[in-house]
């Protein structure tokens, strides 16, 4: 899903499940091509984690708020909080490792709350 300043809060911060957001720029070729991998992961992790992208030039509010200084930047949100953050293009394997790491962290948080 492509996010905007307008729907970011609803789709990300108020999401019931974790959300991976890729911050991208149209002038960044690695960002452009990585969309294919993200689309694949979206299907693979359906229901476990939501995968979204947001263009930094078109959505300055969110971009400024999260202090994006390089693309692609990946942030995984859960319950409106940042669980994981990384920068620089990733291979499919690296993205999966990142997601698994974040899900483990989230599981720990959930268990602690119980």
């Amino acid at each position: 899903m492509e996010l905007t300043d307008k729907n970011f809060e609803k789709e990300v911060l108020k999401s019931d499940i974790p959300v991976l957001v890729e911050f991208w720029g149209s002038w960044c070729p690695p960002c452009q091509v990585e969309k294919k991998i993200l689309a694949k992961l979206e299907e693979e992790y359906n229901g476990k984690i939501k995968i979204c992208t947001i263009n930094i030039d078109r959505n300055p509010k969110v971009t400024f708020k999260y202090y994006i200084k390089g693309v692609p930047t990946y942030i995984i949100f859960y319950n409106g909080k940042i669980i994981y953050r990384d920068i620089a293009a990733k291979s499919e394997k690296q993205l999966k490792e990142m997601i698994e790491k974040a899900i483990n962290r989230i599981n720990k948080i959930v268990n602690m709350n119980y």
Partner: protein
Amino acid sequence: MKPHNAEKTCWNCPAAILKGNVDFRACGQSVEAIRKRVEREGILIECARQPDLGRFEPTITFEECPQWRLTEYGYMLENMRVMILGIDGYLGWTLALKLGRLGCEVSGVDNFLRRRCVKEKGSMSIVPIASMEERLEAAREVLGIDINFREIDILDREKLGRFMKEVKPEAIIHYGEIPSAPYSMVDCDHAIKVQYNNVIGTLGLLFLMKEIVPESCLIKLGTLGEYGSPLTGRPLFEGLFPADAVLIWGGREWSLGGEVTPRDPLSFYHVSKVQDTFNIYEACKYWWLRSYDIMQGVIYGVHTDEVAADPRLRTRLDVDEWFGTVVNRFVAQAILGMPLTVYGEGQQIRGFIALEDAMECMTRLTSSPPEPGQYDVVNQVSGLHKLIDLAETVARVASEKFDIPVKIQRVENPRVEADVHPYEVVSEKLPNTFGFRPKVTLEKEITRMFELLTQPEIKERLKRVAHLIRPSTWWSGEKRVAETIEVYTPGTKRVGGFQPVLITKREAIVPVSKPVEELEEPIQVLAKDDPPKKKTAKKVSKRNGAH
């Protein structure tokens, strides 16, 4: 199914005024006033074509916008202002007529350098071409197209800039380069001439675009030869590595997706194109320009509906060793009764595209501009062929349809290139993103060429340049006519080498470019002193080697 560009929005449209409305942060050039306004109001832009709209959100799709109308090539911007650099050339003139006929407002510049370069080598276009005045008049009279032409050298930035300010092009097609590998290898002066014209001309253009038309799209002609032919057999991706490419080194892994792929140019001319590629890539990154870099295969042919509409509208056709591309040369030699000259083994594989198909690709790309700052590359090719196979095809058409008997001759290869090599080319974007389907088969275009070039007037011209077809420009710097290795009758030679692979849609298993002839048994390498074995080892020479 919707047209290929229906979902594109104002962000892709050259009429959208972004400068001053968007805080372009790519290089940290944050403009405080814009940033604050955008934070308050969101991004609002203006339309250069419809100022009455005021400031609005850039979310209108091409399908929704009244400025974009549906054509057979997708949505086209109504009366789109397209400037063609090198409009007098083989491709420039042909595209000018096609776009003009589609309703574009075509402007163009040329300094007739190509005509002079060809003349300098003692050659000429074998299809007679009219003067620019006559061409413009014929375009008006026959096709109803008004082309705004200006005689300008693109190295003259002041003049070019003035013309750009006057026209405000919404797309710029850059064909204004010297397009010849052998010409760049003649000597030092020629290498410098080619690189200076091509590299400095394009660099100057990028600065002008930044100042005058930053929202315009640059569609720049590169060449498939920028990549070379890697002997690893690695596919030639479309300029940038695909998403799933990774680099594994020292047990660690990195994504290569989106990075510029390696280039291994084949001559100083090809080097100029590689330098252009990097200059354009950087300009897009620094200034939010947008560009398609076209890695075009070897072009051939004479036909589009527009150039065939009147003899005065014909585009040029060169067959000499410097400016004639291989299919064009073969057809000329066949008509002249000369053997078709194949360089070296003739197992070299190249990508090809017919003139008519190439023009359709350019039209589709023009209609579908990239996003701000986006640099993208397409491999513009409709088929891969071994040179020796091409010679066979030309010979077959010559004998079967025109009753012209033809021989093929292998001559020394004056170039430094692999004669035998694997070759895989990825060309997924034009068919899958831009809706392009090749319409012209090799045989069809070759037939059209025979029909045109066998006309008495053209055949006479061919005779006058016949001595300039066989190569005499060596990459080593030597100046001598390449000698014959063998002459044979078409259809009598077993063709070896590698099987080319053109990938237009990636499936789960990608075929591999592999030797045509699989080994039946391992090659035995015998030492000089070894007693001869009863079963003689099969000699397989030059299959994998570059020479």
